[in-house]
């Protein structure tokens, strides 16, 4: 798996934008700005999914995250808006900022230590089989030339054949979460209403 030409450029642009937006999410002072930056980051991640030829997951990402979850976030931000954070004297961070640096450094070292031996292993199938990569490239350009990607079909059949039970469990989970969210968010006024 190696991206070529414009896809490679696009990957770097999208990755850079995703990371910048992620940093903005955790450093914005106003929560609504944070939510808007998070929407941008999620759209960038969806575009990276398209780059990886997972179009169905990209669509689900846009529909569920940007269309559903982020609207929920914005509603809750506006419901619990305290207006306190917009003043500059309020602290944004807990006292754990130094611990965050330490943990980030430790994770970075762990990642580098884990990736150094693994890197050659991940690249070897591509390198040892040039025919395979060229064939892969051929199908990729064939898809890009106007053929319909089979990703959605494959994911759909896998969801209904191999993962049918988890799929049903996921629907039950969503039902339980919906009922639980309604139960948690209703106040004493609504409780009295039905008595």
């Amino acid at each position, binding site marked *: 798996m190696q991206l070529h030409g414009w896809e490679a450029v696009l990957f770097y642009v999208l990755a850079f934008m995703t990371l910048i937006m992620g940093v903005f999410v955790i450093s914005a002072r106003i929560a609504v700005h944070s939510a808007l930056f998070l929407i941008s980051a999620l759209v960038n*991640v969806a575009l990276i999914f398209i780059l990886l030829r997972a179009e169905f997951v990209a669509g689900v990402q846009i529909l569920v995250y940007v269309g559903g*979850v982020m609207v929920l976030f914005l509603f809750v931000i506006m419901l619990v808006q305290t207006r306190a954070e917009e003043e500059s004297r309020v602290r944004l961070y807990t006292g754990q900022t130094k611990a965050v640096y330490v943990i980030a450094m430790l994770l970075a070292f762990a990642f580098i230590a884990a990736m150094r031996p693994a890197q050659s292993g*991940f690249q070897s199938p591509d390198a040892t089989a040039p025919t*395979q990569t060229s064939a892969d490239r051929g199908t990729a350009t064939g898809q890009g030339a106007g053929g319909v990607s089979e990703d959605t079909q494959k994911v759909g059949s896998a969801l209904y054949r191999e993962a049918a039970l988890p799929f049903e469990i*996921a629907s039950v989970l969503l039902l339980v979460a919906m009922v639980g969210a309604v139960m948690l968010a209703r*106040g004493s006024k609504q409780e009295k209403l039905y008595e």
Partner: protein
Amino acid sequence: MQAGGGGFFQRMQDYLKRFEPNLVNFMMLSFLLFIIGVAGVLSRRNIIIIFMSIELILNAVNINLIAFSRYLQANELVLRQRGIMVNPIAGPVFTIFIIVVAAAEAAVGLGIVISLFRNRETIAVDEIDLLKW
């Protein structure tokens, strides 16, 4: 191509080929997004932004899963020749389940935030210390 041959653009192209993203670059992107999410969870006071950081972490995991799925798809024949059976479609399927669980988690978590705000009039995590002693 022969060494020394080709003009400036050819050499430039060969040099740039070194930076073409493969699985490792996607894993690095995923890792950095994960780190940003962890930093947000650990350092912010606003509980809603902590939830947003959790969404960032889950997205990092999703990028990793999709990248590995694509990698297995591209190298399926080679791996099969070596006797390794792969199922590249498991990555997107698992990603969809992660998105479902993230949506459920956000709904319940934000319900808890509303209930908390109604009772305590604050959403700063270091002021919610009723269980601390």
